């Protein structure tokens, strides 16, 4: 089933087109990455999917139901982690989660349990009585997530949940995203950090200037710009190199041998590192290091648009 289906969505602010005839669908169980530079239209799209903005044109469906016609259903199904921190500074961590979960209809013991559980999930259970102003940026981000997941939504939409935080909190959040996905939630993850998207997302859409310019799995996206990957193996010596046998391994195109390195160019979609290494070991070549160079999503974006994801 399609968890989220966007059909020819357009949003104009005056004359400016922020989202331009955009279509995409997110399957149940995916971690869907929405990758693009700042101002590409990610947040605008997300805001339309969460009913915070009305679309100029187009249609959005959550689990097959139109979100304007079934507003309550759609809102109930979504847990939204906004890009800007949306927590009340004058309420404790627990009160924040308690309030937001309550908005989705949870009450009484169930509400309390869910709130505590959500705080535990993001690792803030021991700080539940503290006020957000005593929190670090990463902790606030985690609290922001806890507020969105306590009601156990089917679809969690995270809009840049890792902006401006330390690496440790970032790892924590990325792990939480995986855990949430395993728990059964479909996740839409918006980011302009390609490493994050590359690390956790099963399906990725690259968006720029309000348009999706490429979509697919990591491998599919990379295949757009290149079909070669480079495997560079450092060895003690290349004397006993079984050249012909190496070339006959599936996917291998060219093999170049220098004194202590072997450069193999291979088809990107085939994982043949194991047979290559096994062959070398069997032939008595002493391996000192292996490096497989694949293009990153950053390279994909750079190649397609001529710009980097982050304007440094």
């Amino acid at each position, binding site marked *: 089933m399609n968890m989220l289906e966007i059909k020819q969505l357009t949003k104009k602010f005056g*004359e*400016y*087109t922020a989202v331009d005839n955009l279509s995409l669908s997110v399957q149940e169980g995916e971690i869907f990455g929405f990758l693009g530079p700042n101002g590409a239209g990610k947040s605008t799209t997300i805001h339309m999917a969460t009913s915070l903005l009305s679309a100029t044109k187009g249609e959005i469906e959550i689990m097959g139901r139109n979100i304007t016609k079934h507003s309550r259903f759609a809102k109930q199904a979504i847990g939204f982690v906004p890009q800007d921190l949306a927590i009340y500074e004058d309420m404790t961590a627990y009160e924040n989660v308690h309030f937001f979960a309550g908005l989705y209809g949870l009450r009484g013991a169930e509400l309390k349990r869910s709130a505590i559980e959500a705080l535990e999930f993001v690792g803030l259970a021991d700080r539940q009585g503290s006020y957000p102003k005593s929190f670090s940026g990463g902790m606030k981000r985690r609290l922001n997530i806890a507020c969105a997941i306590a009601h156990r939504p089917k679809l969690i939409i995270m809009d840049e949940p890792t902006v401006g935080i330390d690496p440790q909190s970032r790892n924590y959040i990325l792990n939480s995203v995986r855990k949430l996905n395993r728990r059964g939630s479909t996740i839409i993850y918006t980011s302009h950090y390609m490493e994050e998207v590359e690390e956790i997302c099963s399906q990725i859409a690259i968006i*720029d*200037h309000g*348009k999706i*310019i490429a979509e697919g799995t990591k491998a599919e996206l990379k*295949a*757009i*710009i*290149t*079909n070669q990957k480079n495997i560079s193996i450092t060895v003690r010596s290349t004397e006993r190199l079984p050249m012909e046998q190496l070339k006959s391994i599936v996917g291998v195109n060219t093999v170049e041998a220098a004194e202590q390195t072997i450069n193999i160019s291979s088809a990107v979609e085939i994982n043949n590192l194991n047979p290559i290494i096994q062959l070398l070991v069997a032939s008595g070549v002493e391996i000192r290091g292996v490096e497989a160079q694949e293009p990153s999503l950053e390279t994909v974006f750079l*190649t*397609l*648009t*001529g*710009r980097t994801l982050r*304007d440094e």
Partner: protein
Amino acid sequence: MSEPRDASELLKIGYKVALLVFTVGQSLSSETSITPWYILSVLLYLSTNLLFYMLKKESFRLLVAVLSIGIAIAMFQDHPLVILLLPAHLYELASIFVGKQGIASSLLMMIPLLLVPRQLMLLYILIAAVTLIYFSTLKLYDNKLRGQHSELERMRGDLERVHTRLQENNEFLRQAEYTLKLEERNRLSQDIHDNIGHAMTSALIQMEAAKRLIKINSDQASLLLDNAIHISKEGIESIRFDLKKMKPPTEQMGVNRMKLFIDEFSDKYPIRTAFTYEGNMDFISPIHWKIIQDNMKEAFTNMMKYAGATAVSIHVQVLPLLIKATVTDNGQGKGKIVKGLGIIGMEERAATVGGKVIVDGSRGFSVTTLIPYTP
């Protein structure tokens, strides 16, 4: 679409407020005229007016319009000036009932004249006339805006249709060109057959004759051979000529054509150009070339419009699954790009083969056309 209507609604409200302020202001000067009932009536009058603009249902609107008029009439006894508020309401009332309001509303506006005291008569007529003109002008302007809007929509539709027809015509032209090529080939083979075939045959015959004669009459034989040589020469000349005709001019080829156009451009304008390409250009089909070239021309036009560029680079790259063509200038660029017809045209061109166009103004102005293909 809602914007012009909002604007004209605000103008109407502003007009009514001005009238109300005028009548109320008059009452301020006399000590006795402000009674609690008067204040209550003014407040209720305000409420019904606000409701009139908030309600959607015609019947409710009618009800509150009538209520407004009723309140105004109730106030009339002590505050005759209030009668000046009526024309606006009568006009709005008429607009709910009938489509063409001019005559109907001017007639309706005359009814209160029966009530109006003599000294206010002229003022009332003035206000009624001003109201009629003001509201009709508003309506006119409103309708015009709406008309223009739908006209714009229609024109956009037309443009699209014309565009597709152009596409079809181009397709037809390509077909015609192909048939022309076939015919040309036919003609060539005919030519080869006619000219060279004949020449070779007659040269052959003369050479055969010379071979037989060479021992009997060597003079005669050498004459024949001379003749054969001459004919052969002519034949070769003719082959050269035909081959020259057969070979298409190089500038018709994709990359060369691009180069030609870019050179022409840099000759005309003081802008440096650079054209680079990578990947296997053979994957680019003529249709793709056409789109790339048209988009490039459009990008050049755009670039000339948003001045400030002194150099432009064109890069065509064939990736495993995509063809990417980028035109980048070194001008000021533009933060938020408002799509004009030029950009929309490029997008539509690319969309015919499932491609996308990205226009970016963050570092100079760049137009990237991405076209998918199957190798």
